[in-house]
């Protein structure tokens, strides 16, 4: 049971990553590899600031701002210098590897014993219930603080998901969504499509860096390699969400991206428990995304063939 609580919590933290990937992949229709750099950027900023004694909340907010800058940079390279979106992302991701090493000063920072945002969440358990004892749940005992950590993460993700929804439904957000849909039309309505891309990718990577910052604080370490495979992971979550929910409207898509991330984590936890070698995780994730991407086309072909 404790394993499941942990999987759900990590799933919720990574849901912010899938919301970021949702913006780049589903709104702007391109796989933004900046994600792999900005997850680590968020983690390294949060880790090094917390170790240096800054308040965890400030560290987390600076991590978020760092992600925004990284994403905007990709947007600027893509729109102003007319470099292909995928390549723009790769350029920034590669550059971020060195930046992250500089931020941390070494290749990883363990900070298990430091006070993080999650320490506050754990302390809430004592504040509310007076104890930090374990409680029985579904026949197993779980430390109360784990439940509080899960609840707080859920609240944060729900609020951010809601804010993203409100933003994308605003006048600015509507123009942003239209930019990914039909740039010519949006320009004809007097909207600067370059600005939309730059701000949109900034926002996407801000969420992704926040996800990295929270993940580092939850695990108690940041590592320069932790971004590898994160984009595909985000894609997998977005796709699982879409398949599960089935509706293509914005509210459902955002909810789907969050749920998709949690479900993906649970599946991974179960698979690992059943004896899947951890080394195969990324291979299987990539295969999963591959199949999910070609499946709709295959189904359509089959349906087309069945028609007389």
């Amino acid at each position, binding site marked *: 049971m404790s394993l499941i609580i942990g999987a759900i919590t990590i799933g919720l933290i990574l849901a912010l990553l899938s919301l970021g990937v949702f913006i780049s992949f589903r709104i702007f229709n391109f796989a933004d590899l900046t994600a792999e750099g900005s997850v680590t950027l968020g983690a390294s900023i949060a880790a090094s600031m917390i170790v240096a004694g800054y308040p965890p909340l400030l560290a987390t907010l600076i991590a978020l701002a760092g992600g925004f800058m990284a994403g905007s940079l990709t947007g600027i390279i893509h729109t102003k210098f007319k470099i292909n979106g995928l390549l723009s992302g790769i350029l920034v991701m590669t550059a971020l590897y060195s930046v992250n090493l500089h931020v941390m000063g070494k290749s990883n920072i363990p900070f298990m014993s430091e006070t993080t945002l999650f320490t506050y969440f754990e302390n809430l358990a004592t504040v509310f219930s007076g104890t930090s004892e374990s409680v029985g749940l579904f026949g197993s005992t779980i430390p109360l603080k784990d439940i509080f950590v899960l609840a707080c993460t859920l609240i944060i993700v729900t609020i951010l998901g809601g804010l993203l929804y409100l933003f994308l439904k605003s006048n600015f957000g509507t123009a942003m969504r239209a930019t990914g849909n039909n740039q010519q039309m949006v*320009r004809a309505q007097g909207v600067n499509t370059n600005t939309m891309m730059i701000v949109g990718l900034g926002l996407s990577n801000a969420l992704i860096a926040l996800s990295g910052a929270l993940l580092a604080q939850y695990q108690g370490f940041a590592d320069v390699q932790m971004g590898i495979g994160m984009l595909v992971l985000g894609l997998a979550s977005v796709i699982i969400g879409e398949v599960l929910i089935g509706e293509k409207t914005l509210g459902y898509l955002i909810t789907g991206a969050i749920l998709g991330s949690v479900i993906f984590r649970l599946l991974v936890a179960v698979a690992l428990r059943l004896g899947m070698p951890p080394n195969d995780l990324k291979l299987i994730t990539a295969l999963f995304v591959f199949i999910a991407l070609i499946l709709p086309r295959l189904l359509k072909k089959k349906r087309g063939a069945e028609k007389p």
Partner: protein
Amino acid sequence: MIDILNLSKTFHPGTINEVNALCDITFRVEEGSFVVLVGTNGSGKSSLLNAIAGNFIADHGKIILDGIDITRMAEHKRAKYIGRVFQNPFSGTAPDMSIAENIALAARRGQPGNLRWALPETLLRGFRERVKPLGMELEDRLDSPIGKLSGGQRQALTLLMASWIKPKLLLLDEHTAALDPKTAGKVIQLTEEVVRKNQMTTLMVTHSMPQAVKMGDRILMLHKGKIVNDMNGQEKQRLKIGDLMTLFDEIRKKDQIDQTVADMIDQMYV
């Protein structure tokens, strides 16, 4: 209202694909005038519209719209003054977004974005009122994605969107060419209504001779990036399809003569 002064554009200069799309074009359109642009393929009609809309920046010359020099202005900035309907019904709308969201974008053309809710109920009521006269029963489907509509419905909506806030200039680029004759007829009727009601200064490119003769108060005929004919007033009113065809034939003949002369010189001297 709009002054085009010595406008020139060469695409792919210095290559084998060099095209002189616009050669030193100068004309003036008065406020409220409805100008029809005709010409053979590659005559520069669409290039002229695209130059005015800002899809590309002209090599030489000036474009002055209502006293504002828009020659070098970015496309999205001049969109504040210009309404557009494209030849391709897919170009003018964002397919995955709802009818209401598309209209909401058009209703704020040229205004800076803000973080207010894009579709408040008061706005939607206004949308329904203005969509209803189209007679396409779209007023009850404002939530459905615009990509689900037919080409004709999309063009009708794009036209409505282009004129939602009265633009200083309306650009119609063969906006019925991709539609079946019946739907094209409907969109043309709507075009006349919209233009007349708002007295909009309009430039319309068309390949349809009946449209060119019937619509507008002035015809500009383009050929090889130049204006070869400019008819307005009585002359335009009296113009018949036959006359227009004759004019086209003359141009074609002139071209052929040029070609024969060139061949002759080739044979004699080379």
